[in-house]
């Protein structure tokens, strides 16, 4: 399990492979996102969703810088490539922050994942 507490410029992350889910919540505009996301990237490279299971990702969107978008887009693309049709992604977006949907679209662009959007 990976648990990272949120800061003002980095998200809360809870990753529990045994229960097949990951939660991200908040902003991601740190200066060095590759370092920040290194632990989940390392986990992802060796992970395969067990037969008969799906892996669920819930992302409550905050502000992402383009460096974070690149890293997380690649993360989702690779995770999907290694686990075809088993990645179920849901975005939660504040309805007063409509531009965050654009960032969410960039996160999943060309990854093969078809996300669900919920506005709150």
């Amino acid at each position, binding site marked *: 399990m990976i648990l990272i507490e949120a800061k*003002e*410029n980095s998200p809360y992350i809870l990753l529990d492979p045994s229960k097949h889910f990951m939660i991200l919540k908040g*902003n991601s*505009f740190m200066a060095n996102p590759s370092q920040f996301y290194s632990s989940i990237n390392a986990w992802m490279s060796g992970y395969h969703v067990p037969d008969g299971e799906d892996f669920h990702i819930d992302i409550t969107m905050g502000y992402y810088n*383009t*460096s974070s978008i690149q890293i997380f887009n*690649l993360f989702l693309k690779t995770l999907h490539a290694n686990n075809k049709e088993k990645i179920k992604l849901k975005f939660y977006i504040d309805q007063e922050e409509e531009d965050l949907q654009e960032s969410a679209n*960039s996160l999943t662009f*060309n990854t093969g994942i078809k996300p669900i959007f919920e506005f709150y």
Partner: protein
Amino acid sequence: MTNSSHKYLIYFEGTVDETTLVFFIKKLSENKILPNKLKSSLKFILIELITNMISHNNEDSYGSISIQKENHDYMIITTNFSTEQNFETVKSNINAIKKIKNVKEHYNDQLKNVSFDKSVNLGLIEIYNRCEGDIKVTSKKAGKQLQITFKIQLHDSN
């Protein structure tokens, strides 16, 4: 600048680091007057600009960042110290983006090219898209260093 209705909303001068960026984003989030769409564009632009300033500062991370209102437009002006090479790269990248018809499509094309060995520069494309191309970058010698100024204007329609 001779404009009589020119007004600072936020001005910062000092060492630019991640705390500075958090400060600006918090100040904008707390603002109850600016429209949401404009606040959002200001935040996205500042995130890219300040992250870039932190990454490309030349030894000294001293700089200034301001958000100003002029008539019905909003301007972000930043100054920092960097190298002639960085300045020329930024100018050349802006000129290259100016020639692109569909900037959002270009952004997505670039995103497709990202790999674990290769990152791409999406920040400038993001800024250019948000300010609809109203971005100027200039430089001047400051002693042995080169001071680079970005001036980005957001129109009232944002």
